[in-house]
């Protein structure tokens, strides 16, 4: 039996008719019983990010069908899934290699609608995600929270083509309707994947999740990874994931994807937005339960360093991804050299953007340096979100917008130092320009 747990009961009401649900048509316990455990105890491995993401999905009993299409740097995700399934036969899990990313997205829609109590995951990158777009925007509005679309970040463009990690792909899809969570490091990738369906399939949220991590920097580099036993993962997920209250294609008499008029369309969109915003409340609860269960930090809006209770920082940094680690390493030396207090946020939750939490954290800082690692038509995706978050403050920090690491380039110590020096200069100097580019310690 799926045990009773601590997950909150649904608060939001589904306001559209959704058809009939036939209980008992799908016996989920049989699916759970057919699961082949990969780990029966906690173990420590050396793994890259794609392996960590693949393993997390393989350990879920609800994840039985893996559609995919290869693209660098996400390819190893589907290869790992295929290899593990081939190793452990008989196995009800199956890989489905389709003919294009668009087909993968369509396939996800059909599969997730067929059985809303199973999880359907894929991984892609860059133009692969773009190729899915026609259907990702449908998925984002579909109520199919049992879709996991893992985005292994890579620059979105073929002119020029660059296969390294640059989050311009995920940032170009902020409006697709997915909950977008950025990870840094193999452990965070693994842990995020384990929690993601708990968030997406929450009955108040029912919104697909797009976890992501940097291509090459995290997808292809190895590090130590602690993996949990399958049965404990199941127990954790079962506390949060309950049978979907809405009918699926197989266990229902229902219709998905209907046409509607503008008058009604707006209501659907308001509902979609409410479900998305509910994720802001539920995400920390899941994260806290994960930490209690496994002893590691769970889902959070961001990773924060240097924010004390006594006084706000002089300089606060906001960015995402593994290059934040370089800032963490440099921070003490910067503080010692300048006598300033420095702090930083590595964003985890990109969509919905945690405006209030970011505002509370940055309130009182004198300068906020936002590092954007993706091409943007204006001051930077993250800069605009941070500016929006800070806008209600009476005393707004001075905002310094930087671009560095485009195309997955290294954001080196020298580059961080140059950006931090400019942040220090902005404390009392003239207003900074709208944005600056940096590379290897120089302004470009």
């Amino acid at each position, binding site marked *: 039996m799926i045990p009773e747990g601590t997950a909150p009961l649904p608060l939001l009401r589904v306001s559209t008719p959704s058809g009939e649900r036939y209980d008992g048509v799908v016996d989920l316990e049989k*699916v759970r019983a057919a699961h082949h455990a990969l780990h029966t105890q906690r173990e420590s491995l050396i793994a890259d990010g794609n392996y960590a993401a693949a393993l997390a999905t393989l350990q879920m009993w609800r994840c039985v069908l893996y559609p995919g299409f290869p693209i660098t740097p996400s390819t190893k995700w589907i290869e790992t899934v295929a290899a593990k399934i081939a190793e452990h036969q008989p196995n009800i899990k199956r890989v489905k290699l389709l003919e294009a990313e668009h087909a993968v997205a369509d396939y996800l829609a059909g599969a997730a*609608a067929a059985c809303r109590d199973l999880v359907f995951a894929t991984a892609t990158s860059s133009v692969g995600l773009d190729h899915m777009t026609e*259907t990702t925007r449908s998925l984002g509005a579909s109520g199919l929270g049992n879709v996991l679309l893992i985005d292994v970040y890579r620059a979105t463009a073929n002119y020029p083509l660059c296969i390294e990690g640059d989050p311009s792909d995920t940032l170009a899809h902020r409006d697709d309707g997915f909950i977008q969570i950025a990870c840094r490091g193999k452990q965070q990738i693994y842990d995020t994947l384990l929690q993601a369906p708990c968030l997406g399939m929450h009955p108040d949220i029912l919104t697909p999740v797009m976890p992501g991590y940097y291509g090459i920097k995290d997808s292809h580099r190895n590090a130590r990874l602690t993996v949990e036993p399958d049965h404990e993962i199941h127990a954790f997920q079962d506390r949060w994931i309950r049978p979907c209250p809405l009918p699926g294609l*197989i266990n*229902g*008499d229902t219709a998905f994807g209907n046409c509607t008029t503008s008058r009604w369309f707006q209501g659907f969109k308001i509902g979609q937005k409410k479900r998305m915003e509910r994720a802001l409340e539920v995400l920390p609860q899941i994260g806290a339960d994960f930490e209690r269960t496994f002893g590691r930090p769970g889902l959070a809006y961001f990773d924060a360093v240097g924010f004390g209770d006594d006084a706000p920082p002089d300089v606060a940094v906001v960015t995402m991804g593994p290059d934040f680690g370089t800032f963490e390493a440099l921070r003490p030396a910067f503080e010692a050299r300048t006598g300033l207090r420095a702090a930083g946020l590595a964003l985890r939750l990109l969509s919905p953007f945690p405006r209030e939490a970011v505002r509370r954290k940055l309130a009182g800082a004198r300068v906020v340096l936002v590092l954007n690692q993706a091409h943007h038509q204006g001051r930077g995706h993250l800069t605009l979100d941070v500016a929006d978050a800070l806008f209600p403050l009476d005393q707004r920090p001075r905002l310094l917008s930087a671009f560095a690491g485009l195309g997955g380039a290294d954001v080196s110590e020298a580059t961080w130092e140059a950006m931090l020096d400019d942040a220090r200069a902005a404390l009392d100097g003239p207003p900074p320009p709208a944005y600056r580019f940096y590379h290897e310690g120089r302004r470009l």
Partner: protein
Amino acid sequence: MSGYKEIATRDSCFRPGSTLCPGCMEATAFQNVGRATDNGVKTIFTIGTSCAEVSTLAFPNVVAWGRGDAPPDDVTKSFSIIHNVFESAPTLAESVRDVADILEGAGALRTRVQVVSASGDGGALAIGLRSLLHTVHRRARITVMVLVNEIFANTGFQYSPATTPFAETSTTPVGPDVPGNLRAPLDYVHLAIAAGAELVAQVSPAHGKLFLKTVERALALPSGTAVIFVPAPCISGWKFDDGETVELALLGAQSGVFPAFVWERGKGGKVTDCAKEAAERPAIETFLVRQRRFHHLVRRDRETGQPVPVPGREADLARLREWTQRNVERLYALAELK
């Protein structure tokens, strides 16, 4: 196979209330397939964007699908449908099939499931050719229904890869030196066979018994994909008079424009109700003259009422006759394949 009359008494999953044009062949096809699928197996439809979707699947207006006025108590009579973008219907159906098969393999599914995909020819043969052929190639155990009205009807009757030569469409308009569409249609029947389909048919409800028998064969296939191309005269796009849909579909088949054809892998196929020799078929003009999309080729003689070539278009008409003959011979040749 079930009896024709018995099928006619079943509950169709296609309900009144659609906004399809009166006389639309798509509605007739859905009525028939809807009854054939009332066979004790849970039915799931997938549908790409098309006339057939926007006119039948609306909220809060009528959803013209489902059996009975309320969800049935018996799950095997229940009905589900999912719409997604133009090209997606075969892939959606394949994924539903795969999920059902996995659940069945685990002993977790307590009902059998049959999956039918519905697309228009624009959705399946233009933007969705990739999706169609690869789903067929992967031998998904589904029935794919392609409603061929030879145009993108939903968006305003534009040319599609299935448009008959010389037909006027909104993007192949007729002019003094341009006789409508100049391109021969894609050989989609052959493509489906070549991609690996288990059963391929071109048949409309105008051949009522053959249509239902073919749908039942398709649903009963133990493996592989069945692809049924349904010639679907479009009253608005082909521009013909009320009440002529079935007759026009019959004439189109008999005259060789879209002959009734059913083929099964390992068994070969058959062309029905369309002679190989042109002299033994109704003249193509009898089919053309009823539709204003061919107004530039054929008109009725004021005195005799018989179709006659429009002066100056005799050569175009001859070329259309030649294409029709090749079309018929091609299907007879395909019928020989095993």
